[in-house]
């Protein structure tokens, strides 16, 4: 079966529908599926629920889907970098479900691993626990969190082979593997596609079974906070 597609639009063909739930990889603007987001903007698909740690910045990343009002609801841990997000949220146009970052990651991983729910001590005694089942294990309280089962995963890796085995680069891995796992269909964009055998099987970060469609392209990779140090005089 052929997994490699010619473009983001081709790779998303037949997968998009209004009201769908999407899991997206990335942390801030690091490791985000730039090409697939652009293709989703082009597609006009709307009323999206998106599980993603952040929602891009104004005019970049998932922020582009906000500008076109294609997002109905975000499931995120931190959304501070985006003025349009705040405007839509405060005016009631956009729903927001805050998830602690580790809970969001584990909800994705769990969904992908066939686990509908798990207990965690994160958020016990806070607003996050409201309305959730509390259970005591070994004398400590834990709350029930549910796995995320998405219709589609849009994710980004560094390299993939044509069978879908993926390798990520540095901290651009972040949410991409758990987001990839929890979708019914996973579309992966990469910087380089290689032949099977070119990646060391012992060094695969995400096995190809989780990856259904692959595209390659150029990434802008915008830096959110450029911090540097001075070279000491030698």
């Amino acid at each position, binding site marked *: 079966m052929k997994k490699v597609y010619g473009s983001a639009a081709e790779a998303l063909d037949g997968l998009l529908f209004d009201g769908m739930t999407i899991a997206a990889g990335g*942390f*801030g*603007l*690091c*490791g985000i599926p730039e090409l697939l987001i652009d293709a989703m903007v082009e597609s006009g698909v709307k009323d999206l629920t998106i599980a993603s*740690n952040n929602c891009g910045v104004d005019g970049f990343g998932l922020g582009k889907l906000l500008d076109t009002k294609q997002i109905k609801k975000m499931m*995120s*841990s*931190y*959304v*501070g*970098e985006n003025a349009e997000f*705040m405007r839509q949220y405060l005016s009631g146009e956009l729903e927001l479900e*805050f998830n*602690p*970052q*580790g*809970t*969001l*990651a*584990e909800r*994705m*991983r769990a969904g992908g691993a066939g686990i509908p729910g798990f207990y*965690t*001590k*994160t*958020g*016990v*005694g*806070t*607003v*996050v626990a409201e309305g959730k089942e509390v259970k005591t294990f070994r004398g400590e309280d834990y709350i029930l969190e549910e796995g995320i089962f998405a219709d589609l995963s849009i994710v980004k890796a*560094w390299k993939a082979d044509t069978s879908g085995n993926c390798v*990520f*680069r*540095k*901290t*651009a*891995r*972040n*949410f*991409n*593997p*758990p987001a990839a796992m929890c979708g019914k269909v996973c579309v992966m964009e990469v910087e380089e596609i290689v032949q099977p055998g070119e990646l060391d099987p012992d060094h695969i*970060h995400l096995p190809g079974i989780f990856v259904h469609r692959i595209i390659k392209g150029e990434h802008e*990779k*915008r*830096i*959110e*906070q*450029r*911090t*540097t*140090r*001075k*070279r000491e005089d030698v």
Partner: protein
Amino acid sequence: MPWDRNQMAARAAEELEDGMYVNLGIGIPTLVANYVGDKEITLQSENGMLGMGPFPYEGEEDPDLINAGKQTITELPKTSYFDSSMSFAMIRGGKIAAAILGAMEVAENGDLANWMIPGKLVKGMGGAMDLVAGVGRVIVVMDHTNKHGDSKLLKECTLPLTGKGVVDRIITNLGVLDVVEGGLKIVETAEGVTEDELRAATEATIVN
């Protein structure tokens, strides 16, 4: 004289022991890394990295290498990378020895509030709730009072909580306090600050 930001960070660095894996929050906690001296401390960044290095030299920034504050950083020879679920497995699983973080309010029972002010822009809790629930020891570094001069060490938090009964030690510009049975216990005062001055600036119950 109360401690300044750097002195608070230096005092917080004394809490760290050789060999510890530690997560540092944004602000003064970030400065703690400058004061660890000869101790081998491994910094965790919850976006998926152990062994965080300093900022890169100009021109060597890598968009694929950032910390949890989204700042460009560098790696070290001992660095490892992993995904977000693995990252929080080590946080929630108690493998990280300590987290040093800022706060808006701490209560005498160890409740911590540092993620939202009702009526103000809510940005989100990020990884703070996972960290305070999971790591071995939670050390708060913050000013003793807010900009109106009111105590940030309270009998009860007024803001929405980040975690319940999670704080172990508080380092402020006036001194160091531990959360113990019945309230806060003074561990030390900043040089030139008396216990009476610290008590007067504290709303929380101070036990002897």
